[in-house]
């Protein structure tokens, strides 16, 4: 257990997102991908963002990094990092902010490494561009970095296709922590990996986090993994946060029906075999209200009379 797990609440937030709204603006219609989302991440805290594909969690990650491209537009709200307004940064500030302050590990390591450059060249590139080291110094540091994630430094000369998926993902994580950022964004870091490798990567991240003390924004749809790793978590649905609390509280006592459905979608490894339903096809939640505090530190979007639209035929079918 890390120190932050006990006392994360008292720290100054590293990242503070307030009422963030992101719209995808089309010619004829626009979609609100992220709708008035607020959360903050304390120093050394692991904050989880759970939800299914299309719920807006990756859009949030990209907004924090200011990586959104047209037609996506940040339509409202604020993102502040260590007191600085991320949305007001000019290109030069942004260049320093990225990777040095906030680094990101993308979903698929296979796609985020350049296939025609060796691992070494790609790591050296980070040091020469962002830290201004010489090539020789950069190479030495790149070797250290690979050792940090337990890859043989001889692998600097390997091309991405010569590494296994787990090694590639570890290399990407090494690159992300190269400049000792204070926040690491992990966007589904282990989705494409086997369980054994996944567990090792997660253990590695936890170890690095303990060693280097960065905060983590951890994005995944795997609730079991999230509860294991995160201190605090939020569950997103349709661009809104429907529930946020300490991960253990969400696990032990999910309050929003969508959270309950997500939890019910993961069969347990122990105990008797009980029928699970998950979220029946056709069940939708609409007009999700703002969060209210249901218990100390446990915020849930209340379900009003018009809050959910449920396809009754499907629900009846699932209940049977």
């Amino acid at each position, binding site marked *: 257990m890390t120190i932050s797990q006990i006392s994360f609440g008292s720290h100054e937030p590293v990242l503070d997102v307030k009422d963030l709204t992101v719209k995808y603006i089309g010619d004829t219609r626009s979609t609100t991908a992220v709708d008035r989302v607020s959360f903050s991440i304390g120093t050394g805290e692991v904050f989880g963002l759970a939800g299914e594909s299309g719920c807006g969690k990756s859009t949030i990650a990209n907004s924090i990094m200011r990586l959104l491209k047209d037609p996506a537009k940040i339509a409202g709200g604020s993102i502040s990092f260590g007191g600085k307004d991320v949305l007001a940064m000019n290109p030069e500030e942004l260049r320093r902010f990225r990777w040095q302050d906030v680094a990101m590990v993308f979903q698929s390591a296979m796609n985020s490494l350049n296939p025609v450059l060796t691992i070494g060249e790609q790591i050296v590139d980070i040091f020469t561009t962002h830290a201004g080291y010489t090539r020789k110094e950069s190479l030495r540091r790149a070797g250290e970095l690979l050792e940090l994630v337990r890859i043989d430094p001889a692998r600097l000369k390997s091309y991405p296709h010569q590494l296994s998926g787990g090694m590639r993902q570890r290399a990407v994580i090494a690159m992300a922590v190269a400049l000792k950022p204070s926040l690491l964004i992990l966007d589904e870091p282990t989705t494409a990996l086997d369980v054994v490798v996944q567990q090792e990567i997660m253990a590695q991240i936890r170890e690095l986090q303990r060693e280097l003390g960065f905060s983590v924004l951890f994005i995944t749809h795997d609730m079991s993994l999230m509860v294991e790793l995160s201190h605090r978590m939020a569950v997103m649905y349709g661009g809104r946060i429907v529930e946020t609390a300490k991960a253990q509280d969400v696990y032990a006592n999910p309050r929003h029906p969508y959270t309950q459905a997500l939890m019910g979608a993961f069969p347990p490894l122990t105990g008797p075999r009980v029928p*699970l339903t998950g979220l029946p096809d056709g069940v939708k939640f609409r007009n999700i209200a703002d969060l209210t505090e249901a218990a100390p530190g446990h915020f849930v979007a209340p379900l009003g009379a018009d809050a959910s639209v449920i396809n009754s035929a499907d629900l009846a079918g699932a209940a049977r």
Partner: protein
Amino acid sequence: MSHSLTSPAAGSPAADSTTPTPALEIRGLGKSFPIGGLFSRGSVRALHGVDLTINRGEIVALVGESGSGKSTLARCVARLEKPSSGAILIDGVDILKRDRFQASRAFRSQLQMVFQDPFGSLNPAHRIEHFLRRSLAIHGKGGGSGEETRLRLEELMTTVGLQADMLDSYPHELSGGQRQRVAIARALAVEPQVILADEPTSMLDVSVRIGVLNLMRKLRDEQGISMLYITHDLASARYLADRTAVMFAGELVEEGESLDLLSNPAHPYTQLLVSAVPDPARAGSYDPVRRAELRQAVMASTSCAYDGDPDQRCSAEEPVRHQVGNPGNRHWVRCHLYRPWAGASGHALAGEPAQPNLPASNAQEKASA
């Protein structure tokens, strides 16, 4: 225990009195792929001596990491690959002998596959109706008149939990879960005895996965279809399957009733897999020391827990199966003294930090210089 499990192919069908012939029986299946390198004349052994029996109305899960040979097994059984050795029996008939060169239509109507990617397995240019109608037409299951076919189509859609008016939709109008249901309906259209489902839920959103698993269970319960459920997700294998078989480096290392297997894993590889599954209910699940021990035990086996047991002979020469616990659980583990020759190179563990140096680095130095 006097009951011996050393020759599973001969002994197992008799064990279950209600099912005289299993729906699908795989005996000693092997598959090697030639490697076409400049200097290597060898081949990589993807499967070796796989024995697996699926009784009627039984769901068997096959678990293992990527590269362990699960999908190769499915592809061999579905006759998409030609096995190098062994026999595949459906209803007691060796289909490799019956249809020597390629799968016959009769075989296809006995066994169907559901693939991993519902986005890739449905042609985007056709309406849903086309896929199902085509299956019915090819296998002559559509009935005589157009009206009968129409009824059958609607019945299929209802069976998999979709509305009949979706027959006119295109695949892109459907969600991933709905598409996978269509793929299952397409498999069902030919009324197969066995469905091979290769990671049918891994591409789906988490909240609809359970729905697809429940559908598979329902099909088993209502229509008695046997299934081979291939997955890397142990929790879902436990949820769905009656029995679970664990595959490592192209061989089965352990098999048993799902609940028993996952609560008492006997093989170090199974223990490694089970310990790796994230489970919030289990506190402090990661123990690096224990993991290193398990990994060592998997990669370089030295001792067998059954060594010295008078009833269960160990052997370093052949893959003997030891019975674990109560024989009612049909739980066995492969003798750990036995080490398959050099077959363990292609799997995920090989690239992990336990192995310090890999031979590839020399070649790269030359290439990059």
